[in-house]
Every structure is written in C-alpha cells, then in structure tokens.
C-alpha cells in the first residue's frame, strides 16, 4: 500500500479521533460517578484491582475473555456474509442448556461426555440461530428482529427446564427446590483448569484463541470464506457466481449460533456459576461478545485485545461495590465506549469524502 501524504494524514487523524472519543467516554463516565456521590479515582483503582492487580484476578479476566472471543469470532462469520445476528445472548444460553443435559444428567461423567456435551451445546446454539434462518428465508422476517426476539424467549425456555426434575432441575432430597438451577456438572465431564502463578486459567483460553485464529484464517483464505464475503458484499453477484443466498446465509447463521453455543457449553464445563446452568447463566457474554465483534469491526484478530479489554471491565466491576459505586456502572462505560468507538471511523470517512468532493468542485 502506498502512503500518500493525505493517506498518512487520514491515519493520524483517525488515531487522534479514537483517542479523543475514548477519553470522552471515560470523562462522561467519571462525571456520572462523581455526580452520583462516588469518587472516580477510587472507582478506577477498584476496577484495576478487580481486573488484574489483586492475586488471582487476571486468571478471572482471561476466563471471561475466552467465551467473549469465541462469540465475537462467530459473529464475524455471520457479519461477513452480510447477516446481522444479534441474538448471541440467547444462543449462548441455549448452548449451555443443551450441554447441561449431558454434562449434569449423565452423572459418572467422562471426557467423552464432555465432548458430547459440547457438541450438543453447539448443535443447540446452531438450532436456535437456525430458527432465525428459517424465519428469514421462508418468511422474510428480518434476522435482526427474530434473533432479538429469540433472546427474550431463550431465558424463559431455559428457566422452564430448571423447574422440572425430568429436565434439568437439581434433585435435592428433602429440601424444597426454590432455587432454580441445574445440578453440578459431573466431575469427570469438566474441562481442565491450569494453575499459573496463583491464577486459574481455564483451557477455554487456548481453545478460544485457536478458534479465533481458525475463523480468521478460514475467512481470509478458504473458498468458503471467500463465498461468504462475496455474499456479504454483493448478494446479486454472489448468486450469479453460484453462491446460493439461502444455503450460505443459513450456513453462516448456523455457524455463528454454533460458536455461541460452544462458548456457552465451555463456560459450563469450566465452572461458570459453580458448574450449574440457570436462566441467568449467559451473564451478558452474548451481548458483550457481539459488541466485541462490532468494535473489532468483525476482525477476529482485533477481537482478541478487545475481548480482553471488555473482560477487564467485567471483572473490574466486581470490585466496584467495595468502592461505593454500583457495579452496573460498567454497563454504562461499556455502552459509552462502544458508541465512542463507532464515531472515529465514521467521522474520518465523512471528512475524506468531503475533501474529495472539495477537490472535485475545485477542478470543475
């Protein structure tokens, strides 16, 4: 790529814009903290402690980052094909629920059951996304809408499986079952956890990185990835070239659903919420993962640092309460941050276009 002076200026401008808008997002958050009676410096301190400074915390951060990365890589697949899947939250949950049927029900457990459980989780996630594909290709219901509706439905469906003993509700002798969650996963069906410098790093971390790199490679170098991209950039051309919208669009949706299901089932296998599934199990991993993909502009490599940053925000938020700040502050910061990150590329595009237009009118 040749770097003309104006291209260089554009890049500097873009970086400056990014810095300004990120700072602006944090300044707004700081103002919010201070006006609601907290202290932003204490909040920052607490979040840094929660994210990596305190012993054992960076392991927690990595634990959170791994499923985010998997979900983000999956969203990138659908997005590359021009399909806007925003129902990852539900797909993660349904994936975990599917996995729970094998991991908690078959109690002696074995590594084989772990693999089967994860496979069932992926299948469940894919099927959940598949409903949207069906609604779109059969009935023209926009994927955006159906995936969102399915998020609301998923927590109720999962909640239902936690109210019936023949489904997932934990069977406890002699105690009324008020808490609606599944039994713990079988000990032998769990995924290993590495202990590094006093941190517990689940094996999902290397799996997630391999997955993200694999997705990036497939999208960039395989025929399949090329076809998806073609579909995303111009469905008509793709159709002419023999890339069926229905077939590849469905495939992209199913794959992204399967990725979310994978994330959910791996979370269950590595001890998220104490190895128990429940209707709140997904804990925003789906939303966050989707936002990671949006911020990383559907680039799986770029998703790695973004996922890490989002995970830091999440684990940091666990320590906020001690600093006298509501932990939901992090939802605000995340939202502001994502909004802020949308702005620079758009502004830079706009300015570039205006400059081109100005030179054109000069010549005329």
């Amino acid at each position, binding site marked *: 790529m040749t770097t003309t002076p104006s291209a260089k200026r554009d890049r500097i401008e873009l970086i400056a814009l990014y810095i300004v808008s990120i700072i602006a997002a944090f300044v707004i958050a700081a103002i*919010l903290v201070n006006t*609601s*009676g907290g202290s932003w410096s204490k909040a920052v301190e607490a979040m840094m402690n929660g994210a990596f400074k305190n012993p054992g915390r960076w392991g927690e951060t990595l634990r959170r980052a791994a499923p985010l990365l998997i979900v983000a890589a999956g969203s990138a697949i659908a997005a590359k094909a021009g399909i*806007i899947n*925003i129902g990852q939250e539900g797909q993660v949950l349904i994936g975990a629920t599917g996995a729970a049927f094998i991991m908690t029900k078959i109690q002696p457990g074995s590594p084989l059951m772990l693999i089967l459980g994860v496979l069932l989780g992926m299948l469940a996630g894919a099927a959940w996304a598949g*409903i949207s594909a*069906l*609604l779109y290709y*059969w*009935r*023209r*219901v*926009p994927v*955006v*809408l*159906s995936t*969102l*509706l*399915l998020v*609301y*439905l998923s927590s*109720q*469906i999962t*909640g*239902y499986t936690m*109210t019936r003993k023949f489904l997932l509700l934990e069977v406890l002798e002699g105690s009324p079952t008020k808490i609606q969650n599944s039994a713990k996963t079988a000990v032998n069906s769990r995924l290993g956890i590495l202990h590094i410098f006093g941190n517990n790093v689940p094996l999902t971390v290397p799996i997630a990185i391999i997955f993200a790199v694999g997705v990036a490679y497939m999208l960039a170098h395989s025929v399949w990835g090329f076809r998806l991209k073609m579909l995303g950039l111009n469905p008509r051309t793709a159709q002419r070239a023999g890339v069926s919208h229905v077939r590849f669009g469905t495939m992209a949706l199913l794959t992204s659903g399967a990725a979310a299901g994978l994330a959910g089932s791996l979370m269950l296998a590595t001890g998220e919420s104490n190895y128990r599934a429940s*209707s709140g199990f997904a804990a925003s991993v789906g*939303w966050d993962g*989707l*936002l990671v993909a*949006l911020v990383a502009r559907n680039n799986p490599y770029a998703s790695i640092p973004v996922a890490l940053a989002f995970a830091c925000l999440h684990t940091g938020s666990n320590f906020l309460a001690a600093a006298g700040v*509501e932990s*939901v*502050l*992090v*939802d*605000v910061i*995340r*939202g*502001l941050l*994502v*909004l802020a990150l*949308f*702005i620079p*590329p*758009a*502004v830079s*595009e*706009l300015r570039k*276009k205006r400059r081109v237009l100005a030179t054109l009118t000069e010549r005329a």
Partner: protein
Amino acid sequence: MLAFLGSFGDILANGPLYQSTFRLAAILVFAAAGEWVAERAGTINISVEAMLLGGHFATAIAYTQTSNFAFSLFVGAIAGIFVSSFQAYLSHYLNADQFGIGLTLNILLLGLVAFLEPNFDLSTKLAGEVKVPLLYDIPILGPAMFGQRWPMYLVYAVVPLSWWLLMRTKWGLEVRAVGEDPQAADVTGIHVNARRRHAILYTGFIAGLGGGVYLLGQVGRFESGNIGGKGIIAIAAVIFGGWTLRGAVAGCILFGYVDALRLNLPNIVGHDFNAQLLAALPFLATIVVMLIFAKHTRQPASLARPFIRGLK
C-alpha cells in the same frame, strides 16, 4: 369438553381481559406508530426499546419532582427525542451501522437507568380514570377502550397523527420516497439522510411519550424491567402489519391480547401455569405469528440500507 368450552367462553367474555389488552396494546401502539414512520424512511430502529425506556424513566423523574402529569409526559417525550438523536445522527449523519448503534443504545440505556435509579427517590402514581360518556356504555369494549386513565387516550391522537404526517404531508411523501428509492429522492433534491433523521426523531418523540404513558396510565411504579422487550415486539408488529399503519395497530392489539392473556389466564381459568412459559408467551406468539403471516407483504425497498451519495 364442556368445561373446556365454558372456560373458552369465559376468556372471550372477560371484561378485565379486554381492559388489560387495551393497556398493553397501547404502549405497543405508541412504539409501533413511531417505528412505522422510521421504517418507511428506511431504518429498522431497534433502539425504539431504548427510547421507550428513556421516556419511562424520565417521566418517573419528572413526576417525582413536579407531581404534574402532563408536564411529566412532556419530559418523557423530550427524553425519547434525546435518545433517538443518537440513533439518528450516528446512523444517518455519520453512517455508522444502524443495528450496532441501536443495540448499543439499548444496552447503554438499560445500564444507565440501572445506575441512576438509586439516586432518585422515585415515587409515581397513576393518573385519574376518565370514563368517556356514552361510549363507556358499549358492552365489553366500552370499559376497555373508554374507561382508562387519561394518558392512555393519547393513543387515539398518536395513530392519526402518524398517519397524517406520513400520508398527507409533503414531508411524509418525501420520507416515503427516501425509504423506497433514496437515489431517486436524492436526485429530486430531497435531503435523504435528513429525512431519515427526522423520522427517527419523530419515533423518539412518540416512543418517549409512550414510555411515559405506560408509567402513568398503566404500571404506576417505575421498574427498569417494565419495558423489557416491548419495543422489539412493536417492531414485529410493524412487520406483521406489512408496513401499513392499520396492520401495525392490528399487530399491536394481537400481541397486546396475548400479553393480557399471560397476565389474566391463571385468574380466569383457575389453573396455575408455569411462570416461565407464561412469560415466554408474548415472544413465542410473536414468532409464531410472524412465521404464519409475515410473507405476503412488501417492505420499503430500501429498508435497512444506508444511503451514501455516490455509492449505490
């Protein structure tokens, strides 16, 4: 069998059921009447959820401070416009991805409301009931449609307003043109993205007002979970109605009825249903209805396609 038919009759003749149908459909109608305009301009506005919540919350704050119903509703509408301005300017001035922006706004507003709520000692109450004379005496439908708390009646103004604006004004014609063929509209001198922004701001106004009406006319007490997915169902209603206003309103009534069934069914039939499945009912019904009815409609030709001049 007879018992089953009997309970079926109970459901059909149940007055409170229709009253709650009206109330639950009303908030959907507010959101849908706004969203319809935005979609005809070419935007699928998933942040209508955030606009409802913004209006809901702002109305609660305003009422707590002033105890004035009308003023609080006004504040709610302004808050809706404020939220929608982000969607409008980010997606149709800066051309950022409209779904990304919408989703982020939804998440951001939920977080913001949850964060701010403990700082306000919110206390709201329901507005007074007004029975419209004569009309109130219509059996079953009368009490449902004309025996509500007064903010609810704004719904009768909002629907004709949306229709008139979009179908009978120059602005509306331009908005529809922009949603069908932005290139052609641009050539004739219509500022495409400005019209789309206006349409979104209008959605924010109506949805914010709807959020306020829902608070003062239906629930009475602010909770951040009150809106939970209603905006999304309203979007489904617009699609269900094939992008016509009467169809969208019909969709809202249908989905409102299902929601009312969810609330009233245990009382009417006298049988305890599973709470989760009942809560899932509106969403399940929406999906099933879409599956059956969504096909035979024509969407605005440029729905969800950003317009950038010189880029087809």
